[in-house]
């Protein structure tokens, strides 16, 4: 075993984790743990942009951005948090520029901005140019820039360490994490006054997803096992334009730059559903439009996909502003987007839910917002909640920069007065037992079989449109998979870079996330944002203008409600 002591440990080296690390670097003794090399983190796959009301190309205001965020989230957004998000977005984007991020520029040298779904001028009048971008590789530029800053500030990286456990004292303080070093299989205890979970999402619980294979929800599932609730798990975003069958993301920027969705008859169907914003309606709605078209037999050739049409755009615009996504279409589909439409379908993309936090990134335990001292979360793993029932495009990057930074700064204030909590008597006990168990099972089902079964049922029964019958079936299947997990066996029994073992550990985390998603989705008997119930098709503010908290207890799952904070914008019907 190896023992390390730091002031704070950050788990996850994507945008949120690195942004927090940069606040702390040089001022506190910190470590950043990542199961990949930091620049491989999934922030790097973000494409279209990061919104901020800079107003560089047309009039804009943070309050318009806040309104769009609240409305886009179908009024489940905590509005105090949305205000922080949209106010601080401006400064956060400028900070990224100062760090060297190579944004596209306007002719006069300022950060260029473009249109994105659900972002409007003057409270919904029409689309506004708010998304700051670097071609269609904005996330790549963010992860590279933040990693560069991490190097500049001598951040201590523990690369390719797999998170096994999060440690708490008996009186409920967070005191560190346990990891497995991939290269050696060695177990490490990282003892710290504060822990930040910034491990991203869990799109891999679904069959068709834009998420990286690393997106398995480890950082959400492990605290959940230790009694920390997960919030709003039923809200999972399906991005309308994933490459057919593969799920690889084709940015909303394609539609922001003028791309159009067409059904099998060639009709631009979005305007039938959203007359004002058309193809730039929020993602939850556009995904449902596609679902409706396919259900009505209007998919391409009657099949379960539609087309993203860029053929009317100037070829030089495609090359300059959408080079990567058009390259994906060429590489994976053999389709030339300048002359042919691209087959697309909704793809599992983003978790609005996660570890509940306040606006300082502190994880909270209940509807009274009781905190866990020393325990923080930010980015997709967290639920502040700034995205409510449906996140707007570009707001994930805003979230991780703004709240990663806030969490880092709050930790900086917390650390000097905090004492190092004692470790539990045998801190690695749970982690070691789990690994020994997996390594010593003689025979059983493969992790891949269970994983595929879970991904199938989640895609089939718990995606864009849901109902009680299907979800009950999914729940039974998840229960079966959880039971079968106790008997799965792996081939690799070694200690060196055992990815067979880490994939099995990840599956365990995904089962927990899937279970929480289904529990939330079954409980919430209404339709709101990304959560659409065929058996409860309307929004029910009387009963459900509330967050859900799901707890894993020895007596089974418990659901609780947490009120939504409303400051400026009263809930209204959501039309675009």
């Amino acid at each position, binding site marked *: 075993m190896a023992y390390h002591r730091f002031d704070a440990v950050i788990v996850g080296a994507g945008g949120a984790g690195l942004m927090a690390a940069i606040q702390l670097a040089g001022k506190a003794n910190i470590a950043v743990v990542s199961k990949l090399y930091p620049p491989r983190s999934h922030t790097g796959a973000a494409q279209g942009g990061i919104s901020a009301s800079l107003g560089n190309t047309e009039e804009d205001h943070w309050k318009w951005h806040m309104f769009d965020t609240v409305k886009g989230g179908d009024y489940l957004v905590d509005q105090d948090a949305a205000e922080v998000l949209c106010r601080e977005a401006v400064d956060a984007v400028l900070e990224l520029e100062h760090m060297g991020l190579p944004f596209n520029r306007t002719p006069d040298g300022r950060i260029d901005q473009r249109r994105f779904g659900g972002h409007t001028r003057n409270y919904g009048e029409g689309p506004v140019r708010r998304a700051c971008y670097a071609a269609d590789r904005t996330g790549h530029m963010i992860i590279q820039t933040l990693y560069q800053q991490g190097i500049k500030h001598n951040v201590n990286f523990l690369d390719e360490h797999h998170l096994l456990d999060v440690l708490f004292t008996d009186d409920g303080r967070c005191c560190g994490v346990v990891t497995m070093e991939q290269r050696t299989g060695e177990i490490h205890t990282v003892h710290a006054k504060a822990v930040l979970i910034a491990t991203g999402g869990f799109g891999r619980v679904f069959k068709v997803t834009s998420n990286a294979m690393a997106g398995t929800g480890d950082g959400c599932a492990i605290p959940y096992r230790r009694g920390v609730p997960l919030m709003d798990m039923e809200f999972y975003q399906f991005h309308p334009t994933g490459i057919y069958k593969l799920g690889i993301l084709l940015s909303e920027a394609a539609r922001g730059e003028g791309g159009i969705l067409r059904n099998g008859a060639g009709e631009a169907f979005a305007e039938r559903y959203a007359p004002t914003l058309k193809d730039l309606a929020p993602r939850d709605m556009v995904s449902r439009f596609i679902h409706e078209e396919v259900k009505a037999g209007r998919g391409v050739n009657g099949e379960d996909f539609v087309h993203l049409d860029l053929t009317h755009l100037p070829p030089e615009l495609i090359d300059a502003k959408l080079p990567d996504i058009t390259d994906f279409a060429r590489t994976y589909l053999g389709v030339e987007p300048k002359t042919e439409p691209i087959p697309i379908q909704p793809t599992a993309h983003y978790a609005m839910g996660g570890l509940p936090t306040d606006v300082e990134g502190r994880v909270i335990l209940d509807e009274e917002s009781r905190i866990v001292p020393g325990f923080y979360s930010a980015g997709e793993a967290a639920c502040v909640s700034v995205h409510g029932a449906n996140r707007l495009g570009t707001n994930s990057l805003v979230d991780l920069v703004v709240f990663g930074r806030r969490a880092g700064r709050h930790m900086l204030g917390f650390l000097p007065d905090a004492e190092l909590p004692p470790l539990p008597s045998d801190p690695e006990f749970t982690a070691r037992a789990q690994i020994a168990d997996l390594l010593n099972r003689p025979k059983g089902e493969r992790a891949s079989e269970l994983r595929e079964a879970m991904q199938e049922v989640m895609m089939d029964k718990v995606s864009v449109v849901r109902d009680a019958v299907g979800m009950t079936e999914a729940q039974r299947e998840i229960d079966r998979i959880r039971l079968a997990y106790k008997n799965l066996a792996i*081939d690799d029994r070694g200690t060196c870079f055992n990815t067979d073992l880490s994939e099995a550990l990840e599956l365990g985390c995904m089962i927990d996330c899937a279970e929480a998603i289904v529990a939330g989705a079954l409980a919430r008997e209404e339709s709101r944002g990304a959560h659409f119930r065929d058996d409860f098709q309307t929004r029910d503010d009387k009963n459900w203008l509330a967050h859900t908290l799901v707890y894993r207890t020895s007596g089974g799952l418990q659901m609780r409600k947490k009120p939504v904070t409303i400051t400026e914008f009263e809930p209204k019907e959501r039309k675009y």
Partner: protein
Amino acid sequence: MEVTLRIKRYNPETDAKAAFKEYVVDVEPTDRVLDAMNQVKWKHDGTLTYRRSCAHGVCGSDAMRINGRNRLACKILMKELGKKITIEPLIGYKVIKDLVIDMDQFFDSYKAVKPYLIADDAPSAVERRQSPEQRERYDDTTKCILCAACTTSCPITWTNERFVGPAAIVNAHRFIFDSRDQGGAERLRILNTQSGVWRCRTIFNCTDACPRGIEVTKAIEEVKRALLFETV
């Protein structure tokens, strides 16, 4: 269709040296090599070990030698490769296990060129100005995903472990030609040493290997020219 993957395997815990092992997989022509490898790992042999994450060519995890050329396993399709595909780890760095190589030296070289903006003149409440032309000047080298395909395709890297390698030079170029940066002279000094750009023999393997289409050799030449003619 049936395809045979011939994969170079090495487990330090059990093997004295690396050896090829063959697997027959049933794939679609449009499947990625990564899909075929996943099929092996998930259906046949869970001990097969490789890095992977995004599965669409942007995270840089799964660079390997596929039919003798450095490629990302997630960005090359089966139909481009024939019925028998040879997969080996990248050359030049120590193999940890199967296709997983030791990246320490790669990242050390990267860090050695100070790959971050050096500038102390940030304005407070606005962005620095940069014209679209100035931005375009270094666009190509911003695309690097640090996959190491270029550096491990370079014969100079294979024989001279002190050479910083193409990827480090690409990342130096990204800042040297950024109008906002003030560290160009410092980086050029680093690249003007024994381990720097002059080791490059303009072989173009790096350009061929880059999965992001970066003109790596051209970037290296531009750094050389900046040193010769003081154009920065």
